């Protein structure tokens, strides 16, 4: 599925560790929370970078102490209406200070992209074939923001105050 990052459609260097699969010796690897817990030592022994994937009902506190091991956190959107990952993203960015890639996976549609970007996501696995077009639409439509978030966009209040 298309990966959008930095406003471009890019190749995805990461692979996800399938359930029950052997840990590959090389390459950036994304694991689930369970895999991380079960195989922590083996995963840390690899030379390559590591990412973790959280389901929407797995709060950030589960990985808060381990964050330094991950270059990527993927948050799953099981459905359009499940808004928990937006909170998780903001906590990761604004409270836990996570600076790696924050990736939105799962049910990721045009209409959510702008909210996600504002909440701190910087990479999006979009199922639509017109992913890049969708991204451009989502980023161009709304250009006034009222909430300060880690995306650093100036809010209306900041602009008013000059």
């Amino acid at each position, binding site marked *: 599925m298309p990966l959008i990052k930095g406003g471009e459609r890019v190749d995805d260097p990461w692979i996800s560790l399938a359930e029950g699969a052997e840990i590959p010796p090389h390459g950036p690897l994304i694991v689930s929370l369970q895999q991380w817990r079960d195989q922590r030592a083996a995963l840390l022994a690899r030379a390559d970078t590591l990412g973790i994937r959280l389901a929407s009902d797995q709060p950030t506190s589960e990985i808060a102490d381990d964050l330094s091991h991950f270059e990527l956190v993927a948050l799953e959107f099981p459905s359009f*209406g499940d808004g928990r990952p937006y909170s998780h993203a903001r*906590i990761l960015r604004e409270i836990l200070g996570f600076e790696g890639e924050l990736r939105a996976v799962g049910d990721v*549609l045009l*209409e959510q992209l702008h909210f996600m970007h504002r*909440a701190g996501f910087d990479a999006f696995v979009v199922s639509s074939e017109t992913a890049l077009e969708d991204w451009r*639409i989502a980023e161009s439509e709304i250009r006034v923001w*009222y*909430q300060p978030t880690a995306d650093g966009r100036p809010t209306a209040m900041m602009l*008013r105050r000059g």
Partner: protein
Amino acid sequence: MYRYDEFDSDFVLQRARQFRRQTERRLTGELSEEQFKPLRLMNGLYLQLHAYMLRINVPYGCLSSRQLRKLAHIARVYDKGYGHLTTRQNVQFNWIKLEDTPAILEQLASVEMHCIQSSGNCIRNTTSDPYAGAAAEEIHDPRLYCELIRQWSSLHPEFSFLPRKFKIAVTGSPRDRAAVKVHDIGLRLHRNPAGEAGFEVIVGGGLGRTPFIGKTVRDFLPVQQLLSYLEAILRVYNQLGRRDNKYKARIKVLVHEMGTEAFQKCVEEQWEQIREGGLTLPQEEIDRIGAYFAPPAYEDLSDSVPALETTRREEPAFDAWLQNNVVEHKQAGYAIVNVSVKAVGAAPGDISADQMEAVAELADRFSFGELRVTHSQNLVLCDVRKTDLEALWRRLAAIGLATPNVGLLTDSICCPGLDYCSLASARSIPVAQSISERFADPGRLRDIGELQLKMSGCINACGHHHVGHIGILGADKKGEELYQLTLGGSADENTAIGKIIGPGFDAEGIVDAIENVVETYLSLRQDGERFIDTYQRVGRDPFKENLYASDQGR
């Protein structure tokens, strides 16, 4: 009132254009109805029984005459010539075509209005005291904080996909006209001993299937911290609120299941982490928004107007109107005027395009061009010179908007029910109309005194029946409409949930039952008691006995 600056104007226009794009994709079939549904809901467009309904936010109930004229225009061009005032101080149009909505949103944007978040699982339009800024006993004007909440909650990147809808109400008066204890968050402005303004924060109230009275989680929150504290509450709710069952998804259930203390602790922990962040409100910003709500240019007037007394002696109808519809103002020589949209036999809250235009004209002439929508589905002219009251009354009477029944039995609150709503179990409007006709006599009505009747067409309780002194709940029993009666509810500072009194009634029987309850009250009341006072004194048994005595086995 608040005026949009370039940022606000751009924002609502951008949002309207976005909806045009979404609607076009739906009309060409690129989006299925299933995909389109959450998008239209985020812009207040519901599919009802017969047509689309568009719900337009009236920000915390404040409306300018210019905006009301635009609503009249929309009613005429895109609807059947009338609109409907809702129990959340909004306006609904019930006969809208999907293909017209982008144009309607653009027209609304031109008068600083929108439908953003008027439905969906997000933070809805904040509601407030319809007398804000004018009430004699007001401690602090709540509107500026409502506006700050409006901006902060608009397309919030974190809270646009909550477990369920989320409603905030703010009051700044000791008399609570905003029902803050039955909202997801209720905010009560008051002052601490040092004279600083702050909020009592009440969380987890609500009506619907399982009514709860909100719990106070903080006695005094400095106003500067309003948004950071709201963000902390919403963050806890967004993460922990139930998403497995729509009927248990409101914050009231979370607070109830966690316990107030545990919930409060969670919020405080969250807040500690963000309270010093970018959401702290600079005093200059509070002052800047506050300046929009500065009092209008009141004249220096005497509070006593002898001519009024003469006219009221000569005209009993004027006297009745003064007594029931006109309220004391904080400014000498001025009055707050309630415009009753509850004419005898009319559908509560329905207002025609002609009436809207006429009222807009009256607002310009008599009340600085501003109006309010109340949660009891009426309008208010907030700043009327006492010397103008008679002229205003005559003009209101000429357009059917001077029924002297505000706060009385026929000033009932009523949801749309089965005439429009696809969730309804029973009709509610025709029942309200029958009751209104049964109690049409103004003398009798006045003798009965203050009595709030609230009716919902199903368990979702949009008509707030739980907190009516008398509540009516429509149900469906094997295909027959059945009406349950509740007594003893209250939505003011002494909030109480009414109790079901016994077996339900059919559509005709319910009108008799209301009359029976009223008769019981009249026979038991002691001097000066309102219905609710008598009920609280004697309890429900006498009412129940009289109701079911004559008619065994109903």
